């Protein structure tokens, strides 16, 4: 089976129709549109200065970490509405033990990941065993986790927040993994040759690339590889596309879904770890509505709500749009009250566009 055979017998598909069949096309087009829009309206405001770029990338990165995992789960045909509460839950697990009982921070981070994995496993098993829609099961988890977090936190600390973690985390070896900055030297160099602006005191405007951005890109690449180049990826698509057919062909649909619930929960724990170690505090209300923001990013990214179709790259662009718009509105000086209106409308338009593109792709080939 040589390459010649492939050339000879596989008709070349026109580039445009090949592009149109990619799920992330809409999100890429949307990203360009959003960039052009803010380049015109906020071009001089500093949104596209080094500092502004890092600002919106950081917002995108945190949401994107969540969105990539949520996109895999959605492709497998399930939702997880509990990720928002899971962030608050994981946050207090990380913050309280070091502050109250002197645990090392790495131990409480590990505990948070383990606890979230357990909750994710519980969600997955409930959905798979009972056959209830994941919407209902994880809606239950959403409220249960929030209530549990609130009750336990107030019971232990007497308040709903835990602050002052920096004191403990700054010397812990685990902190640079989640809250550090990378590429300080190249940034300094870029600043020296004048590509990155300097602050008044002569230091570069940004000191490095936040690790969260690396996590985001790394996770997206990993998920893309998982989806397109592994057996498990094939099972994810099949589990969401036609679970019965998948089962008949011997695909372990239930196991695939449970793994993805656990993976989503771990992404929520990663989100919380980054947030708590960067800010040095935890709040029981953290992560509120993140489940919806993640779904918006994933859907803007071209993932089909009913499962079976989508990509992690799309979710990455969805999160990027989210970050750019959120920071862009701030930089242009438009009242940020309008942000949610804009995001909601963007999602609806994205879904309309995506379903049109998919219809076209299915027909024209």
């Amino acid at each position, binding site marked *: *089976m040589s390459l010649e055979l492939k050339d000879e017998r596989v008709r070349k598909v026109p580039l445009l129709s090949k592009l149109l069949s990619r799920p992330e096309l809409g999100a890429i087009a949307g990203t360009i549109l959003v960039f052009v829009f803010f380049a015109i309206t906020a071009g001089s405001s500093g949104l596209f200065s080094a500092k502004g770029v890092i600002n919106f990338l950081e917002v995108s990165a945190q949401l994107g970490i969540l969105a990539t995992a949520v996109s895999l789960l959605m492709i497998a045909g399930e939702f997880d509405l509990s990720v928002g509460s899971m962030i608050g839950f994981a946050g207090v697990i990380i913050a309280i033990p070091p502050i109250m009982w002197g645990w090392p921070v790495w131990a409480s981070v590990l505990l948070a990941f383990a606890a979230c994995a357990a909750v994710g496993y519980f969600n997955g098993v409930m959905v798979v065993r009972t056959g209830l829609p994941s919407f209902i099961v994880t809606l239950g988890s959403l409220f249960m986790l929030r209530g549990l977090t609130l009750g336990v936190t107030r019971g232990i600390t007497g308040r709903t927040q835990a602050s002052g973690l920096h004191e403990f985390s700054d010397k812990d070896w685990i902190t640079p993994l989640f809250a550090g900055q990378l590429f300080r030297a190249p940034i300094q160099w870029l600043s020296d040759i004048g590509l990155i602006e300097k602050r008044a005191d002569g230091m570069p405007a940004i000191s490095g690339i936040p690790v969260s951005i690396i996590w985001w890109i790394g996770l997206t690449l990993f998920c893309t590889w998982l989806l397109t*180049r*592994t*057996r498990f990826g094939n099972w994810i*698509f099949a589990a969401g596309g036609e679970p019965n057919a998948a089962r*008949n*062909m011997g695909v372990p649909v239930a196991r695939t879904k449970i793994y993805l619930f656990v993976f989503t929960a771990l992404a929520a724990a990663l989100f919380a770890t980054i947030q708590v170690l960067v800010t040095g505090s935890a709040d029981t209300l953290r992560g509120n509505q993140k489940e919806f923001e993640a779904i918006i990013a994933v859907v803007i990214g071209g993932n089909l709500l009913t499962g079976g179709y989508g990509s992690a790259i799309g979710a990455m662009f969805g999160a990027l749009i989210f970050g750019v718009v959120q920071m862009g509105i701030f930089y242009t000086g438009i009242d940020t009250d309008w942000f949610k209106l804009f995001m909601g409308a963007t999602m609806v338009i994205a879904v309309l566009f995506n379903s049109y593109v998919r219809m076209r792709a299915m027909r024209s080939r």
Partner: protein
Amino acid sequence: MEQPLVELKSVSKYFGSVIALKDVSFDVRAGEVHCLLGDNGAGKSTLIKTLAGAHVPDEGQILVGGQATRFASPKDTLDKGIATVYQDLALVPLMSVARNFFLGREPLKKFGLINQFDVEFANQTAFQQLSDMGIQLRDPEQPVGTLSGGERQCLAIARAIYFGAKVLILDEPTSALGVHQASIVLKLIVQSKARGIGVIFISHNVHHAYVVGDRFTLLKRGKSVGTYAKDDITRDQLLNLMAGGKELIDLEQEVAKLKNRKLQ
């Protein structure tokens, strides 16, 4: 006479008080198409499921290659080379042809320490296998949803053959298809036969069955009416047997009566 690939010997199957199959014998040899005909409720589904290993017969024997066998599960049956293509085809419309072709049996390639899904091999093999069957794909990565009904049926059959099926059980493969689409599938059945595969073709469409069939077994109310070689029976005789000539005549009389009543 050549030994059958798979044989049911006076098999009976009961569901509580219902007699689904009574004393039915059925077999298929290499390189023949054996059609199983019957109306709804005749016991076709029960017979297929027994052959596919989903039901264990209450009486009688299943022989594979002359050996008495008990199928532990549908998977076990598949491992013995008996593949069933059900009406839902077990295809995922949003996934590519190649990915569907290898669904659940993905080819792997070492990538460092990790086993990767071998996309190139999957694409080339699926394309090659289908084109050998006379199905020209535009692109192995096109979604199954873009294929016609007949092409989908062929994909499911080609997949079963590629994974080593010696006996193919096709459950109503042409019933939901138009004339042209059905003819694609019928051609593929003949091709499978030419490859030495034993095909069990379940249908209630005598016209389709008669074109490709070598032998015909009729089921009626859980019992076998008989097995006929193609030389021994004409299409009309088969039709009559199947529809039950008497029933048709009764029906005609009743319809006539109804018409008369309306006129009065």
